[in-house]
């Protein structure tokens, strides 16, 4: 076995040009598949409900962009629980969206700020991935949240947004409201999200109570109600332990007499995301069932091509091996091994490179799908790379290897002499 492996490596080193070309082709195509799969993997993750982290969204029943009144908030946080038999959610977060421009005369991108108004102390537990930060980053995030609690107009801004707006931590800004037209608010940037929270580069959060306070002040000052301030809440997010609790809670909320105008709907986080991504479904289908297979087949062909060329060129040598006593199976192993070694090594290198290049250098694949603006390559891509390389190489080399196995000594030497 060891001897055979040495022979494989020797063979690969003999036609370095071909080995390098095949490896490069493999790497490029693995890069493509890895990127496509990363997007699909992320989307699958978002639309699937995690068994141990079941999130529920309460929102307007009929209007997808509808808002819920503040009067719903307290009861929603308790999951509309009344009796002691009712399920109470483990955690909650209230979401509203406040967006506006720093310069009302120019609505350009670097002037536009979009904020998630919520309870900042809920961010570490209710926002995805923020519970996965390192110790130092967690401490920093908690310190920033603590500042926001003491300072109602504090905001945490994504570092890319900060750079885009050309502001600094500690800076103060005034936003002219667009989502709440007429409501202009002043903020102080207390910190940025840690850079290790890759997806939060363009996300900013504010205190929801500060938004409510702003609405109240507007109403008091203008002696009239701010039209969009009557129902400011986008949705309430709750967390329960499992599916049973989710179903009981959902029934509890939908049947609650508290929520009639507007009526509410209650769905799992995954379902909500699925709905928003429905119009992208065909694109995802194409990526999954046309694009990925086509790249994989192309990859297989590139490898098959290289290996069959190399088998054809080495007929004589294979015959010599057979004369020396190599069994057909061993010859096949040689060829398969050669292909799979190139495939797996290049696949692995390519995946590693893709992770580094896309995540660190490019800063994610910049395809805006719904509210996701970029996609990162997960660590598991290393396994994909290894697997893709190995499997496509195996499939690509099985026929050439079979034909090598069948090389007849007599035929070959008949040709030579």
């Amino acid at each position, binding site marked *: 076995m060891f001897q055979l492996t040495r022979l494989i490596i020797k063979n690969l080193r003999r036609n370095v*040009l*071909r080995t390098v070309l095949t490896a*490069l082709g493999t790497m490029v195509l693995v890069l493509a598949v890895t990127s496509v799969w990363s997007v699909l993997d992320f989307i699958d993750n978002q639309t699937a409900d995690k068994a141990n982290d079941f999130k529920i969204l309460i929102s307007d029943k009929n209007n997808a962009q509808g808002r819920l009144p503040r009067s719903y908030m307290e009861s929603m946080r308790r999951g509309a629980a009344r009796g002691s038999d009712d399920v109470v959610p483990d955690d909650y977060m209230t979401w509203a969206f406040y967006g506006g421009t720093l310069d009302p005369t120019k609505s350009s991108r670097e002037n536009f700020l979009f904020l998630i108004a919520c309870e900042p102390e809920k961010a570490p537990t209710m926002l995805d991935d923020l519970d996965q930060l390192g110790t130092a980053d967690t401490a920093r995030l908690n310190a920033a949240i603590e500042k926001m609690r003491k300072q109602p107009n504090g905001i945490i801004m994504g570092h890319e947004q900060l750079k885009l707006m050309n502001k600094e931590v500690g800076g103060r800004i005034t936003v002219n409201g667009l989502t709440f037209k007429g409501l202009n608010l002043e903020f102080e940037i207390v910190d940025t999200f840690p850079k290790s929270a890759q997806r939060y580069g363009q996300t900013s959060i504010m205190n929801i109570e500060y938004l409510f306070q702003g609405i109240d002040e507007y109403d008091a000052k203008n002696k009239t109600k701010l039209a969009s301030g009557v129902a400011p809440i986008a949705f309430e997010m709750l967390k329960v332990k499992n599916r049973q609790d989710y179903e009981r809670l959902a029934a509890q909320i939908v049947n609650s007499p508290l929520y009639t105008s507007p009526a509410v709907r209650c769905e799992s986080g995954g379902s909500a995301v699925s709905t928003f991504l429905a119009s992208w479904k065909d*694109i995802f289908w194409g990526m999954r069932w046309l694009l990925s297979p086509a790249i994989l087949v*192309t990859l297989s062909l*590139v490898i098959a*091509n290289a290996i069959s060329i190399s088998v054809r060129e080495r007929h004589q040598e294979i015959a010599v091996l057979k004369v020396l006593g190599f069994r057909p199976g061993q010859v096949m192993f040689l060829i398969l091994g050669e292909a799979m070694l190139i495939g797996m090594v290049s696949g692995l290198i390519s995946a590693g490179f893709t992770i580094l290049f896309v995540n660190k250098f490019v800063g994610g694949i910049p395809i805006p799908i719904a509210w996701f603006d970029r996609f990162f390559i997960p660590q598991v891509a290393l396994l994909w790379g290894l697997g893709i390389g190995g499997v496509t190489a195996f499939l690509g080399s099985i026929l050439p290897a079979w034909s090598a196995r069948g090389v007849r000594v007599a035929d070959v030497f008949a040709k030579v002499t």
Partner: protein
Amino acid sequence: MLAATNRFDLARIAQFPALYGTLVGLIALIVLLLCVGKVPLAYNVRNLIVRWRTSLMMVIAFILVVGLMTMMMAFVNGMIALTANSGQPGNVVVFSGGANDEGFSNLALTEVTNVERTEGIAVNAEGQRLASKEVYVIANQDVPVGPGQKPRRAFVQVRGLEDPLITSTVHNLRLKPGGLWFSAAGVEEATSPDVPGGAYVQAVVGNGIAGELGMSSPEKRPLVVGETFFMADRLWKIVGILDSTGSTYDSEVWAKRQIVAERFGKDVYSSFVVRATEIDQAEKLAETLKDSKEVALTAMTEEQYFVNLQATSRVLLYAVLLVAVIMAVGGIFGVMNTMFAAISQRIKDIGVLRILGYARGHVLISFLLESMILALVGGIAGCFVGMLVDGWTAKSTVGSGPGAAKLVVLQFVVSQEVLAGGLVLALVMGLIGGLLPALRAMRMRVLETLR
């Protein structure tokens, strides 16, 4: 015109000399090589046939790369076609100040009473101003699911109108035969006691959404005039179907504004779409509206608005091109392998040709032609495969940014430009993949080749 200069579509890329220029250049190169080359073409063709396994593998690889690129481009092309056909020349869209899309725009009913009296808006035969006052809502519709399945909902785009005749004139949309516009009340009394609210909501629906709504019914066929669907706790009755294929309105449900306001709790206008007296006055009208002292407004020509909605298509186009390039690079390595092997297999042929007096250039041309022939065959076959998707429909999103998006049903458009793009990709792959090996063949020394 601003709209024209900022306009982005494939047709325009095609007019850009790059695409057709490159294709013509590549084909001219092949013709030139054929004319200048001395080694008979039969030599290359027969060698490709003799090595049919490797040739076939490479052709399949070309078909995959080119076919896929054609399909993806046809998809993006379809998205672009939608937005390109939806805007009417001479129309100006008006949103609330700061808003660039109707999804974010809120115009209070009371503050915009004077907008339609603005100077420069066209008037119809009855003396009515051509100003369509609309509210736009994305509705949740519960999708019927089997027992035990998770409840699902789908988004349906609903547009509430004050006067469907004005709106249809402004958007230049007609009903398909057999349909009517909804009544002034927008509802129709129901005789059956089972109808919620005692009345149907009258609706005119886009041709595409009629199909979508029908798909969740047991018969899985498009809904027709007279049929109903359930949404927002009411039964909606289709009174007319828009002849809207190829525009973004194809995926919308239109109903009386007041009903939409009440059903979805949105008692405001999202947008005004007004028709300028003359097409070339639209820019000026937009400026006038923007300068309105009464209320802060955003105004732009409708064509510009739809150009902005191409942002998503543009990103997808770049993504498609990037994927195509990556696949092509992978393919190029395959072509190189094939051609390097072909050359090392035929070293003696090269030597004989050179001894007989063929120049280095002749050898280069011969091998370059061989890889270009392979590419041309694969490319043409790939284009044929790609053409299969022409006319397919798919769901997608067109938009100008997060949140500002329209859900659309589009048709794949395999246009000449798309096919030209596919061929260019194939030929470039053949050229680059064949060049290095051909150069090596050219550089071989005569006496060494025959040893």
